[in-house]
């Protein structure tokens, strides 16, 4: 039976991890994520799992790779400074295709920044933080309930795709409390990593299955295997030739894209769907004048949603990615021409807006509501940009958003 809980976002992440089958946590304390470590240290050993506080985040991420290949559903939680240290072995996890989940409860940066205040400034770090060409999957909860459900989804994707998957939460989402409808035990859909079958001497740990993902054995079972951070062939043996390198890089990227339908889809709401039929926009399929496509994720999406509630007279569609990477470009692109402009709201100096501009591709003007002072963007600030009275990037003068005026570009 569904149970009601009143959880903190970080607590919901831990509950989601446990429900998904996580049994190994390695991490290092950091605000505003530490509740996840503390709860993991309490919960996992009772489940026969392991919590270990490592000497730093470099070691934490390395330990995840080791435990993952030894069969564990493994995870860690951190914030910006720790996420930076993890990048090295995030690359290792990508290369050896070790399933694991990294929770980044984002805070203001760069460096120590505002250690207790929120930001959404790790958008591009999540995509390109570790060196070299590589795929990235990042999920972005906007509520405590989604801290639970998207953490479960992150484990499922990590296992199914054999790669690290990020959950980008932030200080607001991580520390707020909301009611969560917890699904009954056993009702969740839980995915496991693809396992090998057949003769152990024939096992090739990097020979892809039909979905592009190679079956993964675990240390201590009947299959003996090598994993390497170097370019490697299907046996996991390092190989320096161009053909092997090209094939591996291509497959690592393709295994995500060809499984696109597994990724949590964006939420798309407009005034009518949010407030009910009384606010139907005139003529279904028509394109009301002045329509704005508003793009926001995580805690900024909560303020963005309030814009729709506060201004039912204006046609605004909220496009809220649940999967930030790979960016849901087809879904966004399909909506662009039904609107007269696009507005991106995010707590940074303009990261996701670059991706939106790429997708919009000049078809409509793109404006931005940005904030990077450790405070949440308010609905009023977003409304000003929706109305075209402000644009954080107009003129790109480098002034703070409140100091820039003008509409569009």
């Amino acid at each position, binding site marked *: 039976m569904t149970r009601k809980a009143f959880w903190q976002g970080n607590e919901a992440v831990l509950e989601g991890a446990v429900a998904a089958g996580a049994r190994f946590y390695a991490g290092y304390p950091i605000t505003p994520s530490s509740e996840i470590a503390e709860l993991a240290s309490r919960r996992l050993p009772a489940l*026969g799992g392991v919590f270990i506080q490592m000497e730093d985040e470099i070691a934490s991420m390395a330990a995840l790779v080791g435990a993952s290949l030894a069969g564990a559903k493994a995870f860690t939680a951190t914030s910006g400074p720790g996420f930076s240290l993890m990048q090295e072995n995030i690359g290792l996890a990508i290369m050896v295709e070790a399933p694991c989940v990294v929770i980044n409860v984002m805070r203001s940066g760069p460096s120590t920044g505002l250690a207790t205040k929120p930001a959404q400034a790790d958008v591009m770090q999540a995509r390109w933080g570790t060196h070299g060409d590589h795929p990235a999957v990042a999920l972005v909860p906007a509520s405590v309930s989604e801290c639970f459900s998207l953490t479960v989804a992150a484990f499922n994707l990590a296992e199914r795709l054999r790669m690290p998957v990020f959950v980008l939460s932030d200080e607001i989402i991580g520390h707020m409390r909301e009611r969560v409808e917890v699904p009954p035990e056993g009702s969740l859909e839980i995915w496991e990593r693809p396992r090998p079958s057949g003769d152990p001497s024939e096992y090739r740990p990097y020979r892809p299955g039909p979905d592009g993902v190679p079956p993964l054995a675990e240390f201590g079972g009947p299959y003996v295997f090598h994993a390497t951070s170097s370019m490697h062939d299907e046996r996991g043996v390092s190989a320096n030739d161009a053909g092997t390198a090209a094939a591996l890089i291509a497959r690592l990227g393709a295994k995500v894209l060809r499984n696109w339908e597994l990724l949590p889809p964006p939420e798309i709401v407009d005034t009518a769907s949010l407030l009910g039929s009384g606010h139907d926009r005139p003529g279904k399929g028509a394109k009301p004048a002045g329509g704005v496509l508003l793009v926001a994720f995580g805690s900024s999406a909560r303020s963005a949603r309030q814009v729709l509630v506060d201004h039912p007279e204006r046609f605004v569609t909220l496009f809220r990615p649940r999967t930030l990477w790979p960016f849901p470009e087809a879904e966004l692109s399909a909506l662009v021409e039904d609107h007269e402009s696009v507005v991106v709201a995010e707590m940074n100096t303009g990261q996701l807006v670059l991706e939106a501009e790429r997708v919009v591709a000049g078809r409509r003007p793109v404006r931005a509501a940005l904030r990077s002072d450790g405070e949440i963007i308010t609905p009023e600030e977003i409304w000003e940009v929706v109305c075209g009275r402000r644009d954080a990037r107009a003129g790109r003068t480098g002034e703070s958003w409140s100091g820039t005026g003008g509409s569009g570009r």
Partner: protein
Amino acid sequence: MKDRTAGPTRSRARGYTDYLDEAALPHIWCAGCGNGNVLKALLGAFASRGLDPRMTVVVTGIGCWGKADDYIRTNAIHGTHGRALAVATGVKAYRPELAVVALMGDGDFATIGGNHFIHAARRNIGVTAVVANNLNYGMTGGQYSGTTPAGSLTSTSPYGHAEEGFDLCALAEAAGAAYVARTTAYHYRQMETLIAEALGVDGFSLVEVLTPCPTYYGRLNREGSAPEMWRALKERARGGSFGCLVRRDRPSFAERYAGVQAAARAGTGTEVGPDAR
């Protein structure tokens, strides 16, 4: 001290070739390098312990000795530079019944990975570190490392090295390792015996193997030809601290964490943390 590898994994007499991937030979190491000897001694120790390749995980870092897993037929992770012990800690913490061995050079173990080294020893995680110490970075062209002696000439200390090197065994002892030994690549029998002993230790064990790098360190410091370096190694072992240096019973991480799991199951933990109730 408990012997964790005795028992079911000791099924039949094995030889080092049971663990050697002969198809991967010849190896990449330079003529006169000691790594080949260390590899044979390591695999000989595996054989004398009767390790089951399925229950054995070799974790390597980056460097000349970090390539050793290419020639070993057990499970293996060739990881990132300096992080072999952290990866190995993840394997061992989750699956304590596996034999976990970390192979690192002095760059990996004592320099970029120094923090992981002292914490693995403090934590007493049941990993055997076999460290080939050749006093410099061979793979990248002979730069100085955390064990390079003061005054040495390397490709990044052309006027003589301005820093002292670590005594790895003393550091391991101070950090809490359960077993610490030193030998040289020349002393094959001792090397194999010490590694086999280390593999039987429940907690963290270190076998430091001094090995020559005639290509860089020896050449730059005018230590003569490879045979001359090997003779010097033989003599050196007469003077210093060699053999098993530390052997002490300390509860391993696995033993202590089993206690944590039991306490957690019994619900005897102290309620601390954000939502204690």
